[in-house]
């Protein structure tokens, strides 16, 4: 049975349209115009215990709204969701003791006090057995290499150190479900890597179910087998990371190495020329044309070496994000075969 079950979940916000100009602002005092923004539209999703799922999507796509709905911060306009058998927005303590939410841009620790004090309060709030608390706390602090910083006021920690403390605070009560909203935002590469490897290790050893939103493709590639792409409030893809390329990219990249003295000026007959650095060149061609184009290329030019690759993942995803409407028809539910992509 899935740990997270979401069906037809929608959230519509009423946003005040602030007109430009003083006169219009004054008019706004009397008559206000509102616009309805559908942040999430009829999402359907099922996540099994122990899955590590990434939510991808451009800013404002509805990722964070979905996490807010699942953690009970906001109430949906329509639809149902159950996490660990609970309806999140009822905010029952029994549910709140079983999950945790970490937001990369929000600080939940006491700013002026050492993190250890916030942890001590968490021990009582989450009713953690004192022995287990001490054990978990020192284990997590050691894994994240922050044991020596526990007694230092949070305001004196670096962003990376603070994020690690936030993670410890969130994991002290051993949540069964963990929501991570941009946990590595603003961190340097070393800190990002450290948190990635911690999450991977923690998830593998504790079997916790994790939903992650991140803009860093490296986070996603390192951690998640399953990727859900949300755009304009709807899920447009649910499957493996590599499946995204098969699904959304109708193109291949051909890298050529020419024999000495070969001309490069005729290459645009075969496809879009991406780069020319003699004796190498790169072309982008339609995937369906690969065999035919290669045959033509090889007969027209003296080619020493050739490789055919998928376009970079970031590029494909950026393309999906910038034209999500082109992928509407591929919505999950309307195209059941998508589910087979799941790795």
């Amino acid at each position, binding site marked *: 049975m899935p740990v997270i079950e979401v069906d037809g979940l929608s959230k519509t916000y009423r946003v005040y349209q602030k007109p430009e100009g003083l006169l219009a602002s004054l008019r706004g005092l009397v008559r206000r115009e509102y616009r309805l923004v559908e942040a999430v539209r009829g999402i359907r999703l099922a996540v099994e215990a122990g899955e590590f799922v990434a939510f991808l999507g451009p800013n404002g796509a509805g990722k964070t*709204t979905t996490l807010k709905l699942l953690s*009970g*911060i906001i109430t949906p306009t329509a639809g149902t969701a159950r996490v660990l058998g609970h309806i999140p927005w009822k905010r029952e303590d029994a549910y709140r003791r079983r999950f945790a939410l970490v937001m990369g*841009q929000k600080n939940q620790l006491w700013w*002026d*006090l050492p993190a250890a004090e916030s942890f001590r309060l968490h021990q*009582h709030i989450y009713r953690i057995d004192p022995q287990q608390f001490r054990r978990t706390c020192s284990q997590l602090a050691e894994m994240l290499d922050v044991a020596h910083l526990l007694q230092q006021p949070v305001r004196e920690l670096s962003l990376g150190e603070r994020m690690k403390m936030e993670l410890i605070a969130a994991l002290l009560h051993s949540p069964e479900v963990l929501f991570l909203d941009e946990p590595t935002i603003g961190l340097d590469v070393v800190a990002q890597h450290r948190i990635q490897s911690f999450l991977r290790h923690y998830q593998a050893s504790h079997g916790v179910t994790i939903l992650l939103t991140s803009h860093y493709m490296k986070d996603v590639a390192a951690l998640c087998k399953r990727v859900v792409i949300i755009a304009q409030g709807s899920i447009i893809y649910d499957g493996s990371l590599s499946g995204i390329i098969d699904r959304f990219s109708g193109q291949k990249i051909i890298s050529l190495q020419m024999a000495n003295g070969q001309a490069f000026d005729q290459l645009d007959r075969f496809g879009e020329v991406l780069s020319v650095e003699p004796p190498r060149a790169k072309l982008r061609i339609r995937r369906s044309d690969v065999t035919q184009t290669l045959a033509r290329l090889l007969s027209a030019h003296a080619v020493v070496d050739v490789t055919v690759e998928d376009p970079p993942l970031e590029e494909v995803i950026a393309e999906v994000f910038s034209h999500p409407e082109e992928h509407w028809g591929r919505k999950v539910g309307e195209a059941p075969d998508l589910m087979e992509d799941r790795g």
Partner: protein
Amino acid sequence: MPLRWRLATWWTLLQISIEERLVYRADFALGTLMRFLPIVTQIFLWSAVYSAVSDSHDGQIVGYTYHNMVAYYLLTMVSRAFSSMPGLASGIARDIRDGSIKKYLVQPIDMLGFLLVYRIAHKLVYYAVAAGPLALVFFLCRGFFDGWPDSTTLAAYALSLVLAFLLGFFLEATIGMIGFWFLEVTSLLFVYMLVSFFFSGHMFPIDMLPGIWGTLVRAIPLHYLAYFPAAIFLGKVQGSALVWGLVIQAAWVVLFCILSRVSFWLGTRRYSGYGG
């Protein structure tokens, strides 16, 4: 079992809140001591007012002598030390606007209980810092008082101070919850503070107000924040009036406790989870 955990949570929260308040102890102590400065100016002000009217009114203004007035003023200072809640309403509204309120929604804690314990810690530290200077002020001004009231009056006075604290807390918390509907409550708070300053009796004893104004002020709860405890200490409210006064003060506490909870519940239902 759950009660034991809850008590342990509150106790730890109280300790941690006190620790936090002590972080900026120099600033806190200075701020506390600065509150004593207006005493001197107020005493001079009333002295000037009374010397101007002394000939025509038997040295009294609406039943208050100069000594009564200074004693009253000093006692309202004590009342306000219990009932004023600096930063409570604006803090709640800010948490709503910038999204920090999520913490209370995600964790298995009760926001109002959390803020109440935090406020108690705040007050305890404040009293610890202010107790010495306050005792000194009262000692120096002992001539303005007609001795200590009897033990029953003192007990009623202590009870009214505790109720004034709770009323101040739930009243301001309710105002802070308005932040769910109007994101900016600064102006509203300013109006509240202005009205409260006059009608709580902090500026002058509200029984000085004539006719309809006096009735109106007694009908709203603000005078329980400053005037009422001071009036008990001065022996102006006695017998059944005292009992009824305390009952009504407690009823206002219950009403605002319910109002703040209902508005929190309604507010979170329409909350949009601002701030990322």
